[in-house]
């Protein structure tokens, strides 16, 4: 290694650092120790490096830079926390909404007529609902006509009307399904003026006894209030009778 080569190598040497550990620099430094002219150049070089290093370190950051970095970080952290809270809230809201939908959906499904069992309670509730809401009644004023019409429509027609009911004016009849069976509906008017749109105020449903799994086996009427109507239920000759009207037990008994 000659003097020129040593200078080329030592130009990247800084005093007070670990640069001397580099093998090439260590070799050049050995030459410095043996060469007085190179040694003078080297001393000047070290002074220059120190001066340059000091100059670079005099570059001062703006006074507020540190505070700005920290405050921006704090602001970002808070914003991020807010976003997280909003996100969690949104997820919670979605879950609540889903829960509400499920809550409303399942009960509706369970209220579907099928496959609810063909119990007497269900029969009561469904027939009373029909009586109070809507049925496609064929208007008639004669019980013989009613009998014939029901027979033609393959609905139970071999029924026996109670004595009290025979005295009441008939207004018509209809056929209503209950599960796989058919019920006959005979509508009566007790004597009062019917409200507009109403075709009767006393209703008799007749269905095969086997269509209702827990139909009472007795001909003696059983009285049960259902949805604001009083009902009387009995079985006779394989047929289940359901008479319904507004009023109390005493009020319905006079039609039996």
């Amino acid at each position: 290694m000659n003097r020129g080569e040593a200078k080329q190598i030592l130009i990247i040497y800084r005093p007070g650092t670990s640069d001397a550990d580099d093998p090439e620099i260590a070799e050049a430094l050995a030459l410095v120790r043996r060469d007085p002219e190179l040694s003078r150049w080297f001393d000047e070089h070290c002074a220059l490096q120190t001066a340059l290093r000091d100059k670079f370190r005099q570059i001062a950051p703006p006074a507020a830079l540190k505070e700005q970095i920290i405050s921006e970080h704090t602001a970002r952290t808070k914003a991020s926390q807010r976003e997280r809270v909003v996100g969690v809230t949104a997820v919670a809201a979605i879950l609540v909404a889903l829960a509400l939908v499920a809550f409303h959906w399942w009960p509706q499904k369970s209220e579907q007529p099928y496959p609810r069992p063909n119990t007497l309670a269900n029969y009561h509730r469904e027939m009373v609902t029909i009586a109070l809401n809507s049925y496609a009644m064929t208007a008639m004023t004669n019980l013989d006509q009613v009998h014939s019409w029901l027979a033609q429509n393959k609905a139970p027609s071999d029924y026996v009307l109670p004595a009290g009911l025979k005295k009441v004016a008939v207004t018509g009849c209809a056929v209503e399904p209950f599960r796989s069976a058919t019920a006959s509906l005979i509508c009566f008017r007790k004597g009062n003026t019917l409200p507009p749109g109403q075709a009767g105020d006393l209703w008799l449903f007749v269905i095969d006894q086997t269509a209702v799994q827990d139909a009472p086996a007795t001909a003696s009427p059983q009285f049960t209030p259902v949805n604001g109507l009083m009902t009387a239920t009995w079985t006779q000759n394989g047929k289940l009778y359901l008479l319904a009207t507004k009023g109390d037990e005493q009020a319905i008994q006079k039609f039996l």
Partner: protein
Amino acid sequence: MARGLEFENVVAHHYGPLYQFAFSLTRNEAEACDLTQQTFYIWAAKGHQLRDVSKVKTWLFTTLHREFLGSRRRQTRFPHVELDDTTGDLPAVPPASVNQLDSGHLLEALGQLDEVYRAAVVLFYIEDYSYNEIAQVLDIPLGTVKSRLTRGLQRLHQLLTNVPPQP
């Protein structure tokens, strides 16, 4: 963030040298502030991935340099320079004349250095980084570091001899 390293402590320890590095690279205060801030933003987001706490400084300088390169990638093509390209006598810069320079003149000279040399030279002076550490920060081989330093310092010394000293 790496365990035991509070964000504010990391900023307090390193924002000064990082700013010096950024300012030396860009020679623009606003850009240097942005680069420094961006570096700490990335630290806040990814610093927790750093397992070796002793590497924080190198991680920050590496990140700042990458950000700088990212912002300049479309503007500059770095020439490849071999060590053999260095020729001629080394310029003699009297240390006294450097002492008379203000930072503005130094930065002006630095600004005339090609960016490919500038980053290595600044790291060389600001933080007393070893050649290996500079190689790590700049993600280049050790030989390339030495090559860039030799060429960059030679050019810087040359530029400083042309700057009239302060009265």
